[in-house]
C-alpha cells in the first residue's frame, strides 16, 4: 500500500539513463520548510535538470544544490556534470571529487568550469562526514592510502570511487544514543543497525572494498568488556545499496555483501551480453549485471531492482519494465521503494507516495 512521502523523509532517485549512474538525493525539509538536493553522478544533464524541475514543483526546494559528487571520472558517471555546473538555475555549492585526475576532455572541462564558476572542490577521502539535518553522510572510500597512490601506481579509476553512506537518524546525530549489544549478534540486530542506511558505492571494486572493510570493521562485544568494543555497530549494514559498477563480476566480493546484507539492491544498468572463448568453450553471459554479483546478492536476501528491467524480466520478478527507481527512507525507519516506467529518454513523473 503506497504511503505519502513526508517532509521529513530522505528520498533517493536513481534515474534510468541506460548504462551509467545519475542519482538525485532529496534531503528532508529544513526549518524553513524547504528541501535541499544533492547529485551523485550525472550521466545525463537533460534528464537530471528536467526531473529536478518537476521535483521542485512537487515539493518546494532550494535550487542551490548542496553538492555534486563525481564518484569517479568515467564518462558514464560524469557525462552531464559540466552542463550542470554551468546551469544558471541550479547553482552548485560544492563539487565532491575522488581526486583521480582523468585526461578525458569531459573531465578537464569540469575542472575549467569549477575554476570559472568559483565552485568549491572537495577531495573526498574515507571518514569525511557531512550533516544535512538528521541525515549523516559518511565517505567510506576512497581511503587515504588509495588516494595517495593515484599519481603513482596500482589504482584504477573504479577503485578510486567515492563511496557514500547515508544514515537517516531518528534524533540529532550528536545526541544520538549508541545501541549496546550483549552476547551474540543476531542477523536481525545487524539489519536493525543498517535499518535507515543507504550506501551508494560508485564503481568500487576489490581494492576499494578491502580498504573499506578494514577501516569500517564490524565491532562485537567480547568477554573482556573492553570499552572500545562495547558499542557494536556494523557500519556497512544497510537497507538499500546502489550496487557498485552496474553489478559487474567485480562489483564486490560476497563477503562484502554479507556485511552489508541489503534488503534492496539497485543496479543502474543497460545489460551487455558478451561471449569469450575460455577453456575451449564459448562463454556467453551478461556483464552488467553479471551472474556472480546477482548470486551473491540473492544469497544475502536482497531484492534486486535494475533500471533496465533485465534482471526482473529474466527472473519473472515484478516490475519487469525498465525505469527509474525511487527509495524513501523515513527517519530511523525502513526504506520503501517504487519503480517508475520511464525509458532512457523519458522524464519520469514525480511520485508523491511510495
Amino acid at each position: 500500500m503506497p504511503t505519502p512521502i513526508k517532509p521529513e523523509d530522505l528520498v533517493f532517485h536513481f534515474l534510468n539513463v541506460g548504462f551509467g549512474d545519475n542519482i538525485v538525493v532529496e534531503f528532508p525539509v529544513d526549518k524553513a520548510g524547504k528541501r535541499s538536493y544533492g547529485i551523485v553522478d550525472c550521466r545525463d544533464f537533460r534528464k537530471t535538470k528536467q526531473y529536478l524541475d518537476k521535483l521542485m514543483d512537487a515539493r518546494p526546494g532550494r535550487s542551490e544544490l548542496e553538492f555534486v559528487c563525481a564518484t569517479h571520472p568515467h564518462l558514464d558517471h560524469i557525462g552531464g556534470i559540466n552542463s550542470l555546473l554551468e546551469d544558471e538555475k541550479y547553482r552548485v555549492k560544492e563539487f565532491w571529487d575522488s581526486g583521480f585526475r582523468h585526461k578525458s576532455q569531459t573531465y578537464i572541462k569540469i575542472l575549467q568550469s569549477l575554476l570559472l564558476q568559483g565552485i568549491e572542490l572537495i577531495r573526498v577521502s574515507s571518514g569525511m562526514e557531512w550533516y544535512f539535518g538528521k541525515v549523516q553522510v559518511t565517505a567510506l572510500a576512497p581511503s587515504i592510502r588509495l588516494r595517495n597512490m593515484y599519481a603513482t601506481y596500482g589504482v584504477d579509476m573504479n577503485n578510486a570511487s567515492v563511496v557514500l553512506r547515508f544514515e537517516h537518524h531518528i534524533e540529532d546525530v550528536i545526541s544520538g544514543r549508541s545501541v549496546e549489544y550483549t552476547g551474540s549478534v543476531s542477523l536481525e540486530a545487524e539489519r536493525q543497525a543498517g535499518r535507515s542506511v543507504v550506501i551508494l558505492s560508485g564503481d568500487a571494486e576489490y581494492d576499494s572494498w578491502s580498504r573499506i572493510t578494514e577501516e569500517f570493521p564490524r565491532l562485537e562485544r567480547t568477554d573482556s568488556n573492553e570499552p572500545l568494543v562495547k558499542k557494536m555497530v556494523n557500519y556497512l549494514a544497510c537497507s538499500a545499496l546502489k550496487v557498485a559498477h552496474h553489478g559487474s563480476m567485480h562489483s564486490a566480493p560476497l563477503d562484502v555483501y554479507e556485511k552489508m546484507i541489503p534488503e534492496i539492491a539497485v543496479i543502474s544498468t543497460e545489460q551487455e551480453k558478451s561471449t569469450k572463448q575460455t577453456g575451449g568453450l564459448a562463454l556467453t553471459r551478461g556483464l552488467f549485471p553479471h551472474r556472480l554479483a546477482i548470486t551473491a546478492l540473492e544469497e544475502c536476501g536482497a531484492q534486486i531492482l535494475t533500471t533496465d528491467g533485465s534482471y526482473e524480466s529474466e527472473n519473472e520478478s515484478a516490475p519487469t519494465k525498465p525505469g527509474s527507481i525511487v527509495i524513501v527512507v523515513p527517519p530511523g525507519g525502513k526504506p520503501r521503494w517504487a519503480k517508475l516506467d520511464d525509458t532512457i529518454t523519458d522524464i519520469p513523473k514525480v511520485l508523491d507516495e511510495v
Partner: protein
Amino acid sequence: MKRKLRKVRVRRITVDEKLSDDLFRFVFCSLKEDIEKFTDRDDEWQEEREELVHPKDYSQILDVKKSEAPAWETLQEGQVYLSGEFKVIGDQTKPEYFKVNPGRRKFLRIDNLDMIDEGVKSIYSDVLRRT
C-alpha cells in the same frame, strides 16, 4: 556499420574504461574547425562522444591501420591518442605545440607528454588553490 572518420582532420581519443577483456569504452572528440595550432586546451576541442570498441574494430575508431594500432592488450584507461592530419612542432617528446598538417596523417600517444600530464595537474591545482 562502417565508420566514416576521414573527414575529421584531427581526433583526440581517450581510453575511458575497460569494461571486460574484450570491451573498452573510448571517448573521442574532434578538433574545432577554425583551429590550426593546438596544445590540447579544452577550448580547442568539440564535445566528447563515446564508442564501445572490441578487438576486431578498435583500430577503426583510432582511425589507423590495424598494423599501426597499439596492441589490444596494451590499452589502458587514461591513455590519450591524437589521430589525423597533424604534426608535432618541437621535440617529439616535448612538443611546443601541434599543427594541422593537411594530407599527412599521424598517430601519437600524448597522455605521457608533459604538456598533457602537467596540464591536468596544473588545472587541478588551480581549482584547489582557488577554493
